[in-house]
């Protein structure tokens, strides 16, 4: 029963709007990603100005779980918008020899992702990389 409720809530969430600090309603499906900047949470939409949301990124991560995924302590991205991954540090192969296995694995989890609707690449840090890979079905 609880699984069903979770699924229904997730489906309904895509049709909901969130309320910005200035009172405007922002449809969840229009949000590309959320980012925290100087204590504010900004919702980034395609071709529009960033909109400031109340609360912090952790609270939004909980609220939008299943539709959005955290890739960095400052970024929460819409899963549906993820287009591709890019190497984050493509020009540093020499350093790898000195890294431990754990460090290598962590480095492997770091990348950048592109989203449909923006040219900006979003960083993915090792802390969130493994979870993101699992969600996207890479290296399973």
């Amino acid at each position: 029963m609880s699984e069903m409720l979770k699924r229904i809530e997730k489906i309904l969430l895509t049709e909901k709007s969130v309320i910005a600090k200035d009172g405007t309603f922002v449809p969840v499906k229009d949000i590309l990603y959320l980012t925290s900047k100087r204590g504010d949470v900004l919702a980034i939409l395609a071709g529009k100005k960033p909109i400031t949301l109340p609360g912090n990124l952790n609270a939004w991560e909980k609220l939008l779980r299943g539709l959005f995924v955290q890739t960095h302590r400052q970024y929460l991205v819409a899963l549906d918008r993820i287009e591709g991954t890019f190497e984050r540090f493509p020009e540093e192969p020499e350093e790898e020899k000195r890294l431990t296995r754990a460090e290598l694995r962590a480095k492997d989890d770091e990348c950048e992702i592109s989203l449909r609707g923006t040219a900006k690449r979003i960083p993915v840090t090792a802390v969130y990389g493994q979870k993101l890979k699992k969600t996207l079905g890479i290296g399973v």
Partner: protein
Amino acid sequence: MPRGETDLLKQVLEKLMYLDPPIKKFPVTPEDPAMAVYFLDLKDVCYITTKSDQGREETMFMTSGGKAYFSNLRLTEIEKRLKDHPHYMRTSKFYVINLTKIRGLKVSSARDLWFEGIKEPVVNAVTSTYLAEFEKKLQ
């Protein structure tokens, strides 16, 4: 909870799965050489085939726009990953198809299928081994 209600809830859950599939994107080889992985929207894919095309031997994902994407995974591996996806099913040795993209069907010993946005039919897309299951899913 009575047994009847549990079964009913299971059915509802299955229907919900149809609206909200457990997997929505599939990693494929990107066109952009700078990109490491491209995530193809499974809702745009008509069928997946091992038949070599455009001079390539990899597994091919054909989209409704007529654009092809490729993966190094074998069709069996892809089928395994999509086993819980309600829109996809294996229909022949060479094809895994998206049931929601079918726009036409010709009945012969096998089934030729027409897909959304693709002019040419896929000949023998459904073979006898998979026919019963295919027809069951279409109902």
